[in-house]
Protein backbone atom coordinates (compact mmCIF):
# COMPACT_ATOMS: atom_id res chain seq x y z
CA UNK A 1 0.00 0.00 0.00
CA UNK A 2 1.29 3.45 -0.90
CA UNK A 3 1.65 5.94 1.89
CA UNK A 4 0.56 9.60 1.48
CA UNK A 5 4.26 10.57 1.50
CA UNK A 6 5.00 8.26 -1.44
CA UNK A 7 2.07 9.66 -3.40
CA UNK A 8 3.24 13.23 -2.62
CA UNK A 9 6.73 12.31 -3.94
CA UNK A 10 5.26 10.76 -7.08
CA UNK A 11 3.06 13.81 -7.62
CA UNK A 12 6.08 16.14 -7.33
CA UNK A 13 8.01 13.98 -9.81
CA UNK A 14 5.12 14.17 -12.24
CA UNK A 15 4.94 17.96 -11.91
CA UNK A 16 8.70 18.25 -12.52
CA UNK A 17 8.32 16.11 -15.66
CA UNK A 18 5.47 18.29 -16.92
CA UNK A 19 7.49 21.46 -16.33
CA UNK A 20 10.47 19.96 -18.14
CA UNK A 21 8.38 19.03 -21.19
CA UNK A 22 6.70 22.44 -21.23
CA UNK A 23 10.12 24.17 -21.24
CA UNK A 24 11.41 21.75 -23.85
CA UNK A 25 8.33 22.32 -26.05
CA UNK A 26 8.68 26.11 -25.81
CA UNK A 27 12.34 26.02 -26.83
CA UNK A 28 11.59 23.57 -29.66
CA UNK A 29 8.78 25.80 -30.93
CA UNK A 30 10.92 28.91 -31.19
CA UNK A 31 13.80 26.96 -32.71
CA UNK A 32 11.48 25.56 -35.37
CA UNK A 33 10.09 29.06 -35.99
CA UNK A 34 13.56 30.51 -36.45
CA UNK A 35 14.59 27.74 -38.85
CA UNK A 36 11.46 28.06 -41.00
CA UNK A 37 11.77 31.85 -41.06
CA UNK A 38 15.33 31.38 -42.35
CA UNK A 39 14.18 28.92 -45.04
CA UNK A 40 11.24 31.10 -46.07
CA UNK A 41 13.46 34.24 -46.13
CA UNK A 42 11.10 35.90 -43.68
CA UNK A 43 13.15 38.81 -42.42
CA UNK A 44 12.11 42.19 -41.01
CA UNK A 45 14.37 43.91 -43.59
CA UNK A 46 12.53 42.31 -46.52
CA UNK A 47 9.18 43.31 -44.98
CA UNK A 48 10.28 46.93 -44.55
CA UNK A 49 11.70 47.10 -48.08
CA UNK A 50 8.59 45.62 -49.71
CA UNK A 51 5.91 47.46 -47.75
CA UNK A 52 6.07 50.79 -49.67
CA UNK A 53 5.82 48.98 -53.03
CA UNK A 54 2.74 47.16 -51.75
CA UNK A 55 1.29 50.48 -50.61
CA UNK A 56 1.92 52.00 -54.04
CA UNK A 57 0.09 49.14 -55.77
CA UNK A 58 -2.89 49.43 -53.45
CA UNK A 59 -2.86 53.17 -54.00
CA UNK A 60 -3.42 52.64 -57.70
CA UNK A 61 -6.33 50.33 -56.97
CA UNK A 62 -8.29 53.12 -55.27
CA UNK A 63 -11.02 54.17 -57.71
CA UNK A 64 -11.34 57.76 -58.87
CA UNK A 65 -14.67 58.72 -57.31
CA UNK A 66 -16.03 62.28 -57.22
CA UNK A 67 -18.93 63.39 -54.97
CA UNK A 68 -20.88 65.60 -57.40
CA UNK A 69 -21.15 62.85 -60.03
CA UNK A 70 -21.15 59.79 -57.74
CA UNK A 71 -24.56 58.55 -58.91
CA UNK A 72 -24.27 59.68 -62.51
CA UNK A 73 -24.39 57.35 -65.52
CA UNK A 74 -21.74 54.88 -66.62
CA UNK A 75 -20.32 57.39 -69.16
CA UNK A 76 -19.33 59.97 -66.52
CA UNK A 77 -15.83 59.44 -65.07
CA UNK A 78 -15.90 59.61 -61.26
CA UNK A 79 -19.25 57.89 -60.82
CA UNK A 80 -19.93 54.50 -59.17
CA UNK A 81 -21.48 53.25 -62.40
CA UNK A 82 -18.29 54.18 -64.26
CA UNK A 83 -16.23 52.17 -61.74
CA UNK A 84 -18.54 49.11 -62.08
CA UNK A 85 -19.16 49.56 -65.81
CA UNK A 86 -19.08 45.82 -66.46
CA UNK A 87 -21.26 44.93 -63.45
CA UNK A 88 -23.67 42.73 -65.46
CA UNK A 89 -20.85 40.56 -66.81
CA UNK A 90 -19.07 40.38 -63.45
CA UNK A 91 -22.26 39.35 -61.63
CA UNK A 92 -22.81 36.59 -64.19
CA UNK A 93 -19.22 35.42 -63.64
CA UNK A 94 -19.64 35.57 -59.86
CA UNK A 95 -22.77 33.46 -60.21
CA UNK A 96 -20.77 31.02 -62.31
CA UNK A 97 -18.09 30.86 -59.61
CA UNK A 98 -20.66 30.29 -56.84
CA UNK A 99 -22.34 27.60 -58.92
CA UNK A 100 -18.99 25.90 -59.51
CA UNK A 101 -18.45 25.86 -55.75
CA UNK A 102 -21.98 24.64 -55.02
CA UNK A 103 -21.86 21.85 -57.58
CA UNK A 104 -18.38 20.76 -56.55
CA UNK A 105 -19.39 20.75 -52.87
CA UNK A 106 -22.55 18.74 -53.62
CA UNK A 107 -20.64 16.15 -55.64
CA UNK A 108 -17.72 15.93 -53.23
CA UNK A 109 -19.91 15.75 -50.12
CA UNK A 110 -22.25 13.27 -51.81
CA UNK A 111 -19.34 10.92 -52.42
CA UNK A 112 -17.65 11.63 -49.07
CA UNK A 113 -20.71 10.65 -47.00
CA UNK A 114 -20.98 6.98 -48.10
CA UNK A 115 -17.20 6.56 -48.34
CA UNK A 116 -16.63 7.91 -44.82
CA UNK A 117 -18.39 4.85 -43.36
CA UNK A 118 -15.76 2.66 -45.02
CA UNK A 119 -13.02 4.78 -43.45
CA UNK A 120 -14.28 4.23 -39.89
CA UNK A 121 -12.46 1.46 -38.03
CA UNK A 122 -15.46 0.90 -35.78
CA UNK A 123 -17.70 -0.11 -38.70
CA UNK A 124 -15.41 -1.95 -41.14
CA UNK A 125 -12.22 -3.98 -40.92
CA UNK A 126 -9.18 -1.94 -39.83
CA UNK A 127 -7.52 -2.73 -43.15
CA UNK A 128 -10.37 -1.31 -45.26
CA UNK A 129 -10.61 1.74 -42.97
CA UNK A 130 -6.86 2.30 -43.31
CA UNK A 131 -7.01 2.02 -47.12
CA UNK A 132 -9.96 4.39 -47.45
CA UNK A 133 -8.32 6.91 -45.13
CA UNK A 134 -5.10 6.86 -47.17
CA UNK A 135 -7.23 7.46 -50.29
CA UNK A 136 -8.70 10.54 -48.59
CA UNK A 137 -5.15 11.64 -47.65
CA UNK A 138 -4.02 11.41 -51.28
CA UNK A 139 -7.04 13.35 -52.54
CA UNK A 140 -6.68 15.99 -49.84
CA UNK A 141 -2.93 16.55 -49.98
CA UNK A 142 -3.08 17.83 -53.58
CA UNK A 143 -4.39 21.42 -53.66
CA UNK A 144 -7.41 21.99 -55.91
CA UNK A 145 -5.44 24.42 -58.07
CA UNK A 146 -3.03 21.62 -59.02
CA UNK A 147 -5.96 19.39 -59.97
CA UNK A 148 -7.32 22.31 -61.99
CA UNK A 149 -4.07 22.74 -63.94
CA UNK A 150 -4.17 19.07 -64.94
CA UNK A 151 -7.91 19.00 -65.63
CA UNK A 152 -7.83 22.16 -67.77
CA UNK A 153 -5.33 20.33 -69.94
CA UNK A 154 -7.68 17.31 -70.11
CA UNK A 155 -11.11 18.98 -70.38
CA UNK A 156 -10.16 22.35 -71.84
CA UNK A 157 -10.57 25.85 -70.42
CA UNK A 158 -13.89 26.31 -68.58
CA UNK A 159 -15.85 25.61 -65.40
CA UNK A 160 -15.95 21.79 -65.80
CA UNK A 161 -12.26 21.50 -64.97
CA UNK A 162 -12.73 23.76 -61.93
CA UNK A 163 -15.74 21.82 -60.64
CA UNK A 164 -13.93 18.48 -60.88
CA UNK A 165 -10.80 19.94 -59.26
CA UNK A 166 -12.68 21.32 -56.25
CA UNK A 167 -14.76 18.14 -56.01
CA UNK A 168 -11.68 15.92 -55.68
CA UNK A 169 -10.13 18.05 -52.96
CA UNK A 170 -13.50 18.35 -51.14
CA UNK A 171 -13.96 14.57 -51.22
CA UNK A 172 -10.60 14.07 -49.53
CA UNK A 173 -11.08 16.80 -46.93
CA UNK A 174 -14.71 16.04 -46.03
CA UNK A 175 -14.20 12.27 -46.11
CA UNK A 176 -11.58 12.49 -43.37
CA UNK A 177 -13.65 14.84 -41.19
CA UNK A 178 -16.78 12.70 -41.56
CA UNK A 179 -14.90 9.47 -40.84
CA UNK A 180 -13.72 11.05 -37.58
CA UNK A 181 -17.33 11.94 -36.73
CA UNK A 182 -18.48 8.39 -37.51
CA UNK A 183 -15.70 6.92 -35.36
CA UNK A 184 -16.94 8.98 -32.41
CA UNK A 185 -20.57 7.89 -32.87
CA UNK A 186 -22.35 6.01 -30.09
CA UNK A 187 -22.71 2.45 -31.37
CA UNK A 188 -25.06 1.06 -28.73
CA UNK A 189 -28.17 1.52 -30.87
CA UNK A 190 -26.31 -0.01 -33.80
CA UNK A 191 -25.52 -3.09 -31.74
CA UNK A 192 -29.20 -3.37 -30.85
CA UNK A 193 -30.16 -3.37 -34.54
CA UNK A 194 -27.55 -6.03 -35.31
CA UNK A 195 -28.91 -8.02 -32.36
CA UNK A 196 -32.41 -7.69 -33.87
CA UNK A 197 -31.28 -9.31 -37.13
CA UNK A 198 -30.55 -6.13 -39.08
CA UNK A 199 -27.84 -6.11 -41.75
CA UNK A 200 -24.67 -3.97 -41.70
CA UNK A 201 -26.32 -1.54 -44.11
CA UNK A 202 -29.59 -1.32 -42.18
CA UNK A 203 -27.87 -0.87 -38.82
CA UNK A 204 -25.59 1.83 -40.22
CA UNK A 205 -28.44 3.61 -41.99
CA UNK A 206 -30.72 3.80 -38.93
CA UNK A 207 -28.37 3.91 -35.94
CA UNK A 208 -25.32 5.80 -37.25
CA UNK A 209 -26.53 8.07 -40.06
CA UNK A 210 -29.02 10.07 -37.94
CA UNK A 211 -26.26 10.76 -35.41
CA UNK A 212 -23.74 12.08 -37.92
CA UNK A 213 -26.13 13.95 -40.23
CA UNK A 214 -26.14 17.33 -38.40
CA UNK A 215 -22.34 17.31 -38.21
CA UNK A 216 -22.20 16.27 -41.83
CA UNK A 217 -24.41 19.19 -42.93
CA UNK A 218 -22.32 21.60 -40.88
CA UNK A 219 -19.03 20.41 -42.35
CA UNK A 220 -20.43 20.42 -45.90
CA UNK A 221 -21.58 24.03 -45.52
CA UNK A 222 -18.22 25.06 -44.08
CA UNK A 223 -16.58 23.37 -47.05
CA UNK A 224 -18.95 25.30 -49.36
CA UNK A 225 -17.68 28.59 -47.87
CA UNK A 226 -14.08 27.48 -48.45
CA UNK A 227 -14.93 26.32 -51.97
CA UNK A 228 -16.43 29.67 -52.99
CA UNK A 229 -13.07 31.30 -52.23
CA UNK A 230 -11.27 28.36 -53.84
CA UNK A 231 -13.37 28.64 -57.01
CA UNK A 232 -12.32 32.28 -57.34
CA UNK A 233 -8.64 31.43 -57.21
CA UNK A 234 -9.03 28.41 -59.44
CA UNK A 235 -10.40 30.58 -62.26
CA UNK A 236 -6.92 32.08 -62.55
CA UNK A 237 -5.62 28.90 -64.21
CA UNK A 238 -8.42 29.02 -66.79
CA UNK A 239 -11.06 27.06 -64.95
CA UNK A 240 -13.83 29.61 -65.51
CA UNK A 241 -15.74 32.07 -63.36
CA UNK A 242 -14.74 35.45 -61.93
CA UNK A 243 -11.16 34.29 -61.29
CA UNK A 244 -10.44 34.08 -64.97
CA UNK A 245 -11.62 37.70 -65.45
CA UNK A 246 -9.68 38.84 -62.38
CA UNK A 247 -6.51 37.28 -63.77
CA UNK A 248 -7.07 39.06 -67.09
CA UNK A 249 -7.47 42.53 -65.55
CA UNK A 250 -4.47 41.98 -63.24
CA UNK A 251 -2.30 41.03 -66.25
CA UNK A 252 -3.41 44.15 -68.14
CA UNK A 253 -2.96 46.40 -65.07
CA UNK A 254 -6.57 47.65 -65.24
CA UNK A 255 -6.28 48.90 -61.66
CA UNK A 256 -9.80 50.23 -61.17
CA UNK A 257 -11.33 47.03 -62.54
CA UNK A 258 -9.21 44.96 -60.16
CA UNK A 259 -10.59 46.84 -57.17
CA UNK A 260 -14.16 46.67 -58.51
CA UNK A 261 -13.95 42.89 -58.90
CA UNK A 262 -12.26 42.42 -55.51
CA UNK A 263 -15.05 44.44 -53.83
CA UNK A 264 -17.65 42.24 -55.54
CA UNK A 265 -15.86 39.05 -54.48
CA UNK A 266 -15.63 40.21 -50.85
CA UNK A 267 -19.34 41.08 -50.86
CA UNK A 268 -20.33 37.73 -52.39
CA UNK A 269 -18.15 35.68 -50.06
CA UNK A 270 -19.46 37.58 -47.03
CA UNK A 271 -23.08 37.05 -47.99
CA UNK A 272 -22.51 33.34 -48.61
CA UNK A 273 -20.56 32.96 -45.36
CA UNK A 274 -23.31 34.67 -43.36
CA UNK A 275 -26.03 32.54 -44.96
CA UNK A 276 -24.16 29.31 -44.48
CA UNK A 277 -23.22 30.18 -40.90
CA UNK A 278 -26.91 30.66 -40.16
CA UNK A 279 -27.76 27.33 -41.80
CA UNK A 280 -24.91 25.65 -39.97
CA UNK A 281 -26.08 26.80 -36.56
CA UNK A 282 -29.55 25.50 -37.45
CA UNK A 283 -28.09 22.14 -38.47
CA UNK A 284 -26.11 21.83 -35.25
CA UNK A 285 -29.16 22.67 -33.15
CA UNK A 286 -30.78 19.54 -34.60
CA UNK A 287 -28.37 17.51 -32.55
Amino acid at each position, binding site marked *: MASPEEIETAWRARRRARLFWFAFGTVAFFAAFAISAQVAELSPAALIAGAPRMGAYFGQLIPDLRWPVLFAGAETPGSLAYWFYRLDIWLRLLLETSQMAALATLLGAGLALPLSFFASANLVSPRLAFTTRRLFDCLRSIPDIVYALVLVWAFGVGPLAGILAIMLHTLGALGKLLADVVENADLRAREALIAAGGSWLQATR*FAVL*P*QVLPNFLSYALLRFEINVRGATVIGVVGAGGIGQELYAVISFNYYQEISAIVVLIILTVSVIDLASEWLRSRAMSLQ
Partner: protein
Amino acid sequence: MLELEGLSCRFGETVAVAEVSLRVPEGQMLGIIGRSGAGKTTLLRMINRLQEPSAGAIRFHGQEITRLRGKALRRWRAQCAMIFQHFNLIPRLDVLTNVLMGRLFYRSEMASLLGLFAASERALALELLERHGLLETALKRAGTLSGGQQQRVAICRALMQEPRLILADEPVASLDPRNAQLVMDALRRISREDGISVLVNLHDLRIARSYCDRIVALSAGRVVFDGAPDALTESRAREIYGAPDEESPAFETSHPFAVV
Protein backbone atom coordinates in the same frame (compact mmCIF):
# COMPACT_ATOMS: atom_id res chain seq x y z
CA MET B 1 -36.13 -25.59 -25.75
CA LEU B 2 -32.78 -23.83 -25.57
CA GLU B 3 -29.79 -26.03 -24.81
CA LEU B 4 -26.32 -24.84 -23.93
CA GLU B 5 -23.62 -27.46 -23.81
CA GLY B 6 -20.15 -26.82 -22.45
CA LEU B 7 -20.36 -23.20 -23.60
CA SER B 8 -17.11 -21.29 -22.95
CA CYS B 9 -15.62 -17.96 -23.83
CA ARG B 10 -12.02 -16.92 -23.35
CA PHE B 11 -10.54 -13.45 -23.82
CA GLY B 12 -6.83 -14.19 -24.08
CA GLU B 13 -5.88 -15.67 -20.71
CA THR B 14 -9.11 -14.64 -19.01
CA VAL B 15 -11.94 -17.14 -18.91
CA ALA B 16 -15.20 -15.20 -18.98
CA VAL B 17 -17.57 -18.17 -19.25
CA ALA B 18 -16.45 -21.73 -18.45
CA GLU B 19 -18.32 -24.79 -19.69
CA VAL B 20 -21.86 -23.66 -18.99
CA SER B 21 -24.51 -26.30 -19.72
CA LEU B 22 -28.19 -25.39 -19.35
CA ARG B 23 -31.58 -26.48 -20.68
CA VAL B 24 -34.24 -23.81 -20.77
CA PRO B 25 -37.79 -25.03 -21.50
CA GLU B 26 -40.42 -22.93 -23.36
CA GLY B 27 -41.94 -20.11 -21.38
CA GLN B 28 -39.48 -20.25 -18.50
CA MET B 29 -38.34 -17.05 -16.86
CA LEU B 30 -34.72 -17.74 -15.98
CA GLY B 31 -32.79 -15.30 -13.82
CA ILE B 32 -29.01 -15.32 -14.11
CA ILE B 33 -27.34 -13.79 -11.09
CA GLY B 34 -23.78 -13.20 -9.98
CA ARG B 35 -21.32 -10.43 -9.14
CA SER B 36 -20.25 -8.07 -11.88
CA GLY B 37 -17.57 -9.76 -13.95
CA ALA B 38 -19.05 -13.22 -13.31
CA GLY B 39 -19.74 -13.71 -17.03
CA LYS B 40 -23.49 -13.02 -17.14
CA THR B 41 -23.31 -10.54 -20.02
CA THR B 42 -20.87 -12.65 -22.05
CA LEU B 43 -23.17 -15.67 -21.66
CA LEU B 44 -26.19 -13.78 -23.05
CA ARG B 45 -24.17 -12.21 -25.86
CA MET B 46 -22.92 -15.64 -26.94
CA ILE B 47 -26.49 -16.96 -27.24
CA ASN B 48 -27.30 -14.07 -29.61
CA ARG B 49 -23.90 -14.56 -31.28
CA LEU B 50 -22.86 -10.94 -30.61
CA GLN B 51 -19.94 -12.70 -28.94
CA GLU B 52 -18.39 -15.78 -30.54
CA PRO B 53 -18.05 -18.74 -28.15
CA SER B 54 -14.58 -20.28 -27.81
CA ALA B 55 -16.04 -23.74 -27.32
CA GLY B 56 -19.33 -25.53 -26.77
CA ALA B 57 -22.69 -25.71 -28.48
CA ILE B 58 -25.94 -23.74 -28.51
CA ARG B 59 -29.03 -25.55 -29.76
CA PHE B 60 -32.54 -24.17 -30.17
CA HIS B 61 -35.19 -26.82 -30.91
CA GLY B 62 -32.37 -29.03 -32.13
CA GLN B 63 -30.92 -26.41 -34.48
CA GLU B 64 -27.19 -25.78 -34.04
CA ILE B 65 -26.75 -22.03 -33.52
CA THR B 66 -22.97 -21.69 -33.21
CA ARG B 67 -22.34 -22.39 -36.89
CA LEU B 68 -24.98 -20.07 -38.39
CA ARG B 69 -23.76 -17.48 -40.86
CA GLY B 70 -25.17 -14.71 -43.05
CA LYS B 71 -28.93 -14.68 -43.50
CA ALA B 72 -29.47 -17.68 -41.22
CA LEU B 73 -27.58 -15.91 -38.42
CA ARG B 74 -29.68 -12.79 -38.92
CA ARG B 75 -32.84 -14.93 -38.77
CA TRP B 76 -31.65 -16.39 -35.44
CA ARG B 77 -30.93 -12.92 -34.09
CA ALA B 78 -34.42 -11.80 -35.09
CA GLN B 79 -35.82 -14.83 -33.24
CA CYS B 80 -33.98 -14.17 -29.99
CA ALA B 81 -34.59 -10.56 -29.09
CA MET B 82 -32.14 -8.71 -26.88
CA ILE B 83 -32.83 -6.06 -24.26
CA PHE B 84 -29.95 -3.94 -22.99
CA GLN B 85 -29.14 -2.16 -19.75
CA HIS B 86 -28.86 1.17 -21.55
CA PHE B 87 -31.91 0.55 -23.79
CA ASN B 88 -29.87 1.18 -26.98
CA LEU B 89 -32.63 3.07 -28.78
CA ILE B 90 -31.86 5.54 -31.56
CA PRO B 91 -32.31 8.79 -29.61
CA ARG B 92 -32.91 11.05 -32.62
CA LEU B 93 -35.60 8.92 -34.23
CA ASP B 94 -39.20 8.82 -33.07
CA VAL B 95 -40.49 6.03 -30.84
CA LEU B 96 -42.60 4.43 -33.59
CA THR B 97 -39.60 4.13 -35.93
CA ASN B 98 -37.54 2.69 -33.08
CA VAL B 99 -40.16 0.00 -32.53
CA LEU B 100 -40.32 -0.72 -36.28
CA MET B 101 -36.58 -1.44 -36.16
CA GLY B 102 -37.64 -4.83 -34.81
CA ARG B 103 -38.85 -5.66 -38.33
CA LEU B 104 -35.52 -5.03 -40.09
CA PHE B 105 -34.87 -8.70 -40.74
CA TYR B 106 -38.33 -9.24 -42.25
CA ARG B 107 -38.17 -6.28 -44.67
CA SER B 108 -36.31 -6.29 -47.95
CA GLU B 109 -33.03 -4.42 -47.68
CA MET B 110 -34.03 -1.69 -50.17
CA ALA B 111 -37.47 -0.99 -48.68
CA SER B 112 -36.10 -0.82 -45.15
CA LEU B 113 -33.27 1.52 -46.13
CA LEU B 114 -35.86 3.96 -47.44
CA GLY B 115 -37.69 3.68 -44.14
CA LEU B 116 -40.63 1.89 -45.75
CA PHE B 117 -42.63 -0.34 -43.45
CA ALA B 118 -46.00 -1.95 -44.11
CA ALA B 119 -49.17 -0.41 -42.67
CA SER B 120 -49.76 -3.71 -40.86
CA GLU B 121 -46.35 -3.41 -39.20
CA ARG B 122 -47.12 0.13 -38.06
CA ALA B 123 -50.46 -1.10 -36.72
CA LEU B 124 -48.70 -3.87 -34.75
CA ALA B 125 -46.13 -1.41 -33.42
CA LEU B 126 -48.84 0.99 -32.25
CA GLU B 127 -50.76 -1.89 -30.66
CA LEU B 128 -47.65 -2.90 -28.71
CA LEU B 129 -47.02 0.69 -27.65
CA GLU B 130 -50.63 0.99 -26.51
CA ARG B 131 -50.37 -2.24 -24.51
CA HIS B 132 -47.34 -0.80 -22.71
CA GLY B 133 -48.97 2.56 -22.08
CA LEU B 134 -46.71 4.40 -24.50
CA LEU B 135 -49.09 5.24 -27.34
CA GLU B 136 -48.97 9.01 -26.80
CA THR B 137 -45.16 8.97 -27.06
CA ALA B 138 -45.20 7.31 -30.52
CA LEU B 139 -44.18 10.44 -32.44
CA LYS B 140 -41.76 11.83 -29.84
CA ARG B 141 -38.03 11.41 -30.17
CA ALA B 142 -36.89 8.36 -28.22
CA GLY B 143 -34.10 10.40 -26.59
CA THR B 144 -36.61 12.68 -24.85
CA LEU B 145 -38.28 9.82 -22.95
CA SER B 146 -37.50 8.81 -19.37
CA GLY B 147 -35.33 5.76 -18.77
CA GLY B 148 -38.28 3.59 -17.80
CA GLN B 149 -40.22 4.61 -20.89
CA GLN B 150 -37.19 3.96 -23.10
CA GLN B 151 -36.75 0.46 -21.71
CA ARG B 152 -40.43 -0.29 -22.37
CA VAL B 153 -40.01 1.02 -25.93
CA ALA B 154 -37.04 -1.38 -26.22
CA ILE B 155 -39.33 -4.21 -25.07
CA CYS B 156 -41.85 -3.24 -27.78
CA ARG B 157 -39.01 -3.30 -30.32
CA ALA B 158 -38.05 -6.77 -29.09
CA LEU B 159 -41.66 -7.99 -29.40
CA MET B 160 -41.83 -6.58 -32.96
CA GLN B 161 -39.25 -9.22 -33.83
CA GLU B 162 -41.86 -11.90 -32.99
CA PRO B 163 -39.17 -13.53 -30.87
CA ARG B 164 -39.14 -17.11 -29.61
CA LEU B 165 -36.65 -16.18 -26.90
CA ILE B 166 -35.82 -12.95 -25.07
CA LEU B 167 -32.38 -12.15 -23.65
CA ALA B 168 -32.40 -9.25 -21.20
CA ASP B 169 -29.04 -7.98 -19.97
CA GLU B 170 -29.51 -6.08 -16.68
CA PRO B 171 -32.76 -4.55 -17.98
CA VAL B 172 -33.56 -2.67 -14.76
CA ALA B 173 -30.09 -1.74 -13.49
CA SER B 174 -30.42 1.85 -14.79
CA LEU B 175 -33.99 2.35 -13.59
CA ASP B 176 -35.70 3.60 -10.44
CA PRO B 177 -37.75 1.03 -8.47
CA ARG B 178 -41.12 2.04 -9.91
CA ASN B 179 -39.92 1.76 -13.51
CA ALA B 180 -37.97 -1.39 -12.71
CA GLN B 181 -41.21 -2.95 -11.53
CA LEU B 182 -43.05 -1.99 -14.75
CA VAL B 183 -40.27 -3.48 -16.87
CA MET B 184 -40.00 -6.70 -14.84
CA ASP B 185 -43.81 -7.08 -14.88
CA ALA B 186 -43.76 -6.73 -18.66
CA LEU B 187 -41.04 -9.37 -19.03
CA ARG B 188 -42.88 -11.81 -16.77
CA ARG B 189 -46.13 -11.24 -18.66
CA ILE B 190 -44.35 -12.02 -21.94
CA SER B 191 -43.02 -15.30 -20.59
CA ARG B 192 -46.33 -16.32 -19.00
CA GLU B 193 -48.80 -15.22 -21.66
CA ASP B 194 -46.82 -15.67 -24.88
CA GLY B 195 -44.87 -18.76 -23.76
CA ILE B 196 -41.57 -17.11 -24.67
CA SER B 197 -38.51 -18.08 -22.61
CA VAL B 198 -36.89 -15.06 -20.99
CA LEU B 199 -33.27 -15.15 -19.86
CA VAL B 200 -32.64 -12.17 -17.65
CA ASN B 201 -29.34 -11.07 -16.09
CA LEU B 202 -29.85 -9.45 -12.73
CA HIS B 203 -27.51 -8.39 -10.00
CA ASP B 204 -30.33 -7.71 -7.57
CA LEU B 205 -31.12 -10.98 -5.82
CA ARG B 206 -34.46 -9.76 -4.52
CA ILE B 207 -35.77 -9.01 -7.99
CA ALA B 208 -34.54 -12.36 -9.25
CA ARG B 209 -36.23 -14.23 -6.39
CA SER B 210 -39.61 -12.57 -6.80
CA TYR B 211 -39.89 -12.71 -10.62
CA CYS B 212 -38.04 -15.77 -11.89
CA ASP B 213 -39.16 -19.38 -12.15
CA ARG B 214 -35.59 -20.55 -11.86
CA ILE B 215 -32.30 -19.00 -10.85
CA VAL B 216 -28.84 -19.77 -12.16
CA ALA B 217 -25.88 -18.24 -10.37
CA LEU B 218 -22.55 -17.69 -12.06
CA SER B 219 -19.23 -17.18 -10.33
CA ALA B 220 -16.01 -16.72 -12.30
CA GLY B 221 -17.84 -18.00 -15.39
CA ARG B 222 -19.11 -21.24 -13.80
CA VAL B 223 -22.60 -22.27 -12.76
CA VAL B 224 -22.54 -22.47 -8.98
CA PHE B 225 -26.27 -22.69 -8.38
CA ASP B 226 -29.19 -23.87 -10.50
CA GLY B 227 -32.58 -24.28 -8.97
CA ALA B 228 -35.86 -22.80 -7.79
CA PRO B 229 -35.74 -19.38 -6.10
CA ASP B 230 -36.79 -20.94 -2.81
CA ALA B 231 -33.76 -23.22 -2.84
CA LEU B 232 -31.50 -20.19 -2.87
CA THR B 233 -31.16 -19.78 0.88
CA GLU B 234 -29.33 -16.97 2.57
CA SER B 235 -26.31 -19.17 3.23
CA ARG B 236 -26.18 -20.33 -0.42
CA ALA B 237 -26.38 -16.71 -1.55
CA ARG B 238 -23.48 -15.80 0.74
CA GLU B 239 -21.42 -18.59 -0.80
CA ILE B 240 -22.15 -17.25 -4.30
CA TYR B 241 -21.44 -13.64 -3.53
CA GLY B 242 -18.58 -14.35 -1.13
CA ALA B 243 -17.96 -12.25 1.93
CA PRO B 244 -20.46 -9.44 2.35
CA ASP B 245 -19.14 -6.23 0.83
CA GLU B 246 -20.56 -3.34 -1.14
CA GLU B 247 -21.14 -5.56 -4.16
CA SER B 248 -23.29 -8.20 -2.50
CA PRO B 249 -26.97 -7.39 -2.59
CA ALA B 250 -29.02 -7.13 0.52
CA PHE B 251 -30.79 -10.39 1.07
CA GLU B 252 -34.42 -9.92 1.85
CA THR B 253 -37.38 -12.16 1.27
CA SER B 254 -39.91 -9.37 1.02
CA HIS B 255 -41.13 -8.07 -2.34
CA PRO B 256 -38.37 -5.90 -3.84
CA PHE B 257 -40.67 -3.05 -4.83
CA ALA B 258 -42.82 -3.12 -1.71
CA VAL B 259 -43.91 0.39 -0.84
CA VAL B 260 -43.03 1.16 2.76
